[in-house]
């Protein structure tokens, strides 16, 4: 797999809490993500989709199996795989601009270049004028835009997103979808996007991978077949509704399973 393709080979992960029994979170997950593809990981809570993302990000060690990016095995976090979290993960003591500059400083760019880039991305996410605001002064949607700008500013080849719009209200979420698609158009990247929202997955992704209830496996993969059409057009099509229904059904079965697991204390 050339370029920035991602390969998961029989990846398993066991969650070992300080108290209690170990739990198998992922069971032999194998998956290939094509270069410049937008892949959605869809599944009920607890299915391990975030865990898979964290393994890819290098935040958790891969104990069983192998994850490779562009042929090289993943061994730790790095600026080639930028991550955006659900609760924004902004440094609250830094201003918007300082947050975005953080990654750029780590890249050791010259000062003038850093400032220019930071401003560029502030403008890209439509936060011009808020450079000196602190996260505590921003709304949820604005915070998420800062988080996205911060990650994009270091220009990672791969973008990992962990339910990034989950903490936002429905309206803001809709706006963020548009913004994200717009950004992807201007600077395409490989994206792995975790969500439990079926419509969101179909709206944004090229392919949707459905994960089973714990232990997580890839249950099925659905091609969305965008064919270069803009999202608003796709939304109105018949296939969109069909795919949503199909995926909804698939996820629902897993969600019910997960619920049973929880009530049994498993």
């Amino acid at each position, binding site marked *: 797999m050339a370029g920035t393709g991602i390969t998961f080979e029989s990846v398993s992960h066991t969650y070992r809490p300080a108290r209690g029994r170990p739990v198998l979170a992922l069971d032999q997950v194998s998956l290939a993500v094509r270069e410049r593809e937008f892949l959605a990981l869809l599944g009920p809570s607890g299915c391990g989709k975030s865990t898979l993302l964290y393994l890819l990000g290098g935040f958790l060690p891969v104990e069983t199996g192998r994850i490779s990016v562009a042929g090289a095995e993943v061994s730790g976090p790095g*600026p080639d795989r930028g991550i955006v979290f659900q609760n924004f993960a902004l440094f609250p003591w830094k201003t918007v601009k300082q947050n975005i500059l953080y990654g750029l400083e780590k890249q050791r760019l010259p000062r003038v270049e850093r400032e220019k880039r930071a401003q560029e991305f502030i403008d890209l996410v439509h936060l011009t004028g808020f450079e000196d605001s602190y996260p*505590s002064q921003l709304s949820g949607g604005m915070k998420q835009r800062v988080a996205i700008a911060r990650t994009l500013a270091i220009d990672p080849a791969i973008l990992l997103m962990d339910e990034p719009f989950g903490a936002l209200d429905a309206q803001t979420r809709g706006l963020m979808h548009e913004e994200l698609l717009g950004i992807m158009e201007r600077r395409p990247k490989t994206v792995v996007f975790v969500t439990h929202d079926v419509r969101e997955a179909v709206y944004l992704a090229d392919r949707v991978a459905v994960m089973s209830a714990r232990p997580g496996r890839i249950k099925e993969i659905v091609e969305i077949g965008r064919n270069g059409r803009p999202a608003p057009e796709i939304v109105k099509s018949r296939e969109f509704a069909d795919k949503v229904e199909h995926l909804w059904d698939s996820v629902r079965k897993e969600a019910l399973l997960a619920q049973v697991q929880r009530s049994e204390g498993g």
Partner: protein
Amino acid sequence: MSALARYLPLLLLAALWEIVPRLGLIDASSVPPLSAVAAAWWELLRSGDLVSNGLSSLQNLCAGLALGVLVGASLGVLMAWYRPLDDFVHPLVRALYPMPKSALIPVMILWLGLGSASKIASIFIGCLLPVVLSAYNGARGVDRVLVWSALAAGASRRAVLWEVVVPSALPEILAGTRNALALSFILLVSSEFVIGQRGLGYLISFLGEGGAYDSMFAGVLTVAAVGFLADRIYLAIMRSALAWRD
């Protein structure tokens, strides 16, 4: 409520403090009228006694407190960051925490003699553990997604410690330092009572033993005022340092 209205009862008490002894309702030798205390205070200031002892106290306080906070915060953060250090040190901290540190003043005298060193050491030891614990809790409570975001941005683990963990722990460290500040005053005065030599605590007990009660009260009020002001000033500093919190 304006500050004046809020502190009115204190003004009333002050007025009572003046009137009641003067009217002879209370033995004026045990409770000198406030004006006498004020006059004595002025005299202490003029003679230089207040200033020289005050400076000695402040020096020892700042030294002990600064050491306690620096060592304590560093230790607490490092303990939270490096598991092996935590396993080793934490039980010790937990065991020593409930012990009243003021009980160590005699040991300090034994080790360091009757001078500034034992006062500073007493203050240092008293402040240390509360700061260690609050720094530890603050550092432990760092949201892991902040650490991960920094790592993903290309920061080394050591950079993450300085650039994410410490700023994240700062609110708790500052809160713990406020406690340490109060404790440091207590240990300062106690060690000055016990060790003597110099300092406001020494001055107060010296004046008391000598029967100069007006001056003694003046000294006590001075210490109280300094303690109060220090806390208020610290609070203001803390608020501005944490202005980003809102």
